[in-house]
């Protein structure tokens, strides 16, 4: 009859990715945390400006625009703090990723409709408002962030995280 005891696993070095993954994920996690926190703190001191910015997209009815405009900076800060601490990393990455997807959709929608989103000046005669040329950059940048979030959802184990310290994950 086969013995019940487990055999010790043969000793061998873990594949490259397994060694590097936690560090890469940590970098991604901290990078996204910085993005979220900077964005949130920049907006939270100027809630009327945040509401105006949401309104400018002309996508939401007035009451929702006001609600979203006021709530968004704090949501960004909360997500940023979670990512910074490495607490519920995967969930935070999902929320962050969704936010970025929504932003991209908004930017593309505004772009397509020829709206000028930034509080910019119009020179008349078709001169480009300062905000307009940033559409492509903003879209690409936000897509990059989405990629980062997806990466983190796939590989959420990181170093120096509360998830680890509280033994919420492996």
């Amino acid at each position, binding site marked *: 009859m086969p013995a019940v005891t487990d055999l010790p696993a043969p000793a061998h070095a873990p594949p490259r990715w397994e060694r590097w993954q936690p560090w890469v994920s940590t970098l991604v996690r901290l990078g996204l945390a910085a993005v979220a926190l900077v964005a949130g703190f920049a907006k939270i001191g100027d809630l009327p400006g945040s509401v105006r910015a949401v309104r400018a997209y002309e996508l939401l009815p007035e009451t929702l625009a*006001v609600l979203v405009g006021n709530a968004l900076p704090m949501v960004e800060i909360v997500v940023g703090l979670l990512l910074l601490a490495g607490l519920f990393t995967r969930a935070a990455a999902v929320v962050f990723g969704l936010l970025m997807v929504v932003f991209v959709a908004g930017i593309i929608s505004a772009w397509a409709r020829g709206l000028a989103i930034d509080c910019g000046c*119009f020179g008349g005669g078709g001169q480009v408002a300062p905000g307009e040329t940033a559409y492509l950059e903003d879209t690409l940048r936000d897509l990059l962030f989405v990629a980062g979030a997806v990466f983190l959802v796939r590989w959420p184990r990181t170093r120096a995280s509360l998830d680890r310290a509280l033994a919420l994950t492996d």
Partner: protein
Amino acid sequence: MATQVRPTKAQRRDEARIMAERMRAEQERKNKRQRTIVIGSVVAVLAVLAVLVAVILGEEGRSPLEEVELSPQGSTATGAIPVGPQGIAGTAEGAADDAVVVSVYSDYLCGYCALFEELNADTMAEMREAGDIVVEYHTIAIYSDSPLDMQLAASAALIADRAPEQFLDFHHALMAYQPTIMEQQSISHEEIAGIARDVGVGTDVVTQLESGEYVDGEGGYAPWVVAATDKASQDLGRLATPTILIDGEMLDTQFNWQEEGWLDGAVEAARG
């Protein structure tokens, strides 16, 4: 060499150890799940509270135009300062019945707005004095995180309210002063008072400007500027300056107000 039929003591001990380990692992999993739920709930509650606080504080900051205590006399429900043939802020008296309303949304820190004023002030004055148009000035502060912007808009509101006859000249002079303001990235109360004095504003109002008591507190116009800017954002959607409305219709952003005769054309078209 008979096959063993019964597990030996050693094997039974090993089995027991493995069972214990399995039970420990199971317990640890349950503990982990419970920890996650508890911590997760706490974080969720805190997050919701934080967002609620932000939303409530944000709402408190808004007050519709009707509720603002101090507004420039004659200012409109859309947060504008109307000027008619008499050239006095707050009244359109004497304008023709079919006078076209030209709304000008501007910001004192906006370069194109200063240019607009420079190029079009004379034409607009002509048409206004003839009674053909009424100009509604929306002197708003779109850079809401800039106290400088607020200061400038509040000073204009003060002049419109308490020195309405000098409003047009003051508005023009303040726009012309923009390069200096941009260079300094500030403007002192004395400087604004000086500009007001130069266009003939009376001593009372000049003194108020010098004291700096035209922005916040009693006698301050900041609440009106904030409400007017918010109203502008609601009415226009995209808030950019300068924005021109002819009888409430927004001129296309491709429209070239740097071209001569654009206003005549637009007004003619509005008259139909």
